[in-house]
């Protein structure tokens, strides 16, 4: 268990960063702070904040995709309204319109090749470009909603 002060400090930092980027932490603060504690424990244990709900190998290179925020956060937010741990939730979940449950693991079992190419989405308001399966819920630059994105490539 990390010190309470450290948990609070990291919680506040993650919360501010999330809100500034169009993301949201899980509003269930007890739940979220337990995960923040997990991130601190892993930082101490491995030297990087590996996902609290996945078994890290301890080899940074092999764990890059599960350093929080992991590569799977955004597709899981799109498909399930929460990341695998439910540290991050979608606006819909935040507004209480959708209940959370644990979701399937998206990380490929070791040895599977990574997806080669992603489509590129363009924010029609500010021109922000991102290459990912689906556009983000909110444009991290100008905060335009998802429906203002168009497929660019």
């Amino acid at each position: 268990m990390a010190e309470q002060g450290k948990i609070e400090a990291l919680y506040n930092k993650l919360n501010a960063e999330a809100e500034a980027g169009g993301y949201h932490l899980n509003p269930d603060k007890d739940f979220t702070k337990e995960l923040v504690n997990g991130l601190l424990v892993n930082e101490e244990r491995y030297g990087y904040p590996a996902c609290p709900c996945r078994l890290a190998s301890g080899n940074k290179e092999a764990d890059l995709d599960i350093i929080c925020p992991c590569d799977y956060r955004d597709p899981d937010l799109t498909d399930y309204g929460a990341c695998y741990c439910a540290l991050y939730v979608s606006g819909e979940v935040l507004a209480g319109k959708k209940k959370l449950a644990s979701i399937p693991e998206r990380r490929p079992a070791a040895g599977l090749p990574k997806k080669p190419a992603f489509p590129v989405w363009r924010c029609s308001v500010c021109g922000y470009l991102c290459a990912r399966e689906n556009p983000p819920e909110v444009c991290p630059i100008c905060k335009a909603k998802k429906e203002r994105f168009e497929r660019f490539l």
Partner: protein
Amino acid sequence: MTMNNVPGKDKGSVKLYALSTCVWCKKVKKLLNDLKVAYDYIDVDLLEEEAKAEAKEEIIKWNPPCSFPTLVLGDKKCIVGFDEGKINRELG
């Protein structure tokens, strides 16, 4: 690899593979405690390398992506994730 035993009602073999940092795993432990069933659990992230490899091998037999929590019932069934409905149906 020895598991931690929590005493309670006998519902056959109930084995929980968990991570000490995972909140969904904690929810499964709490649900099993609330149901007062006897179970064995292990926090795989806290094990030494050898025991960790052994645990992973066991989990992969039931749940190939080796995700947590993995709950194995009676060496027959496996419930992956915090699936409250299923756990209640099987053990409630």
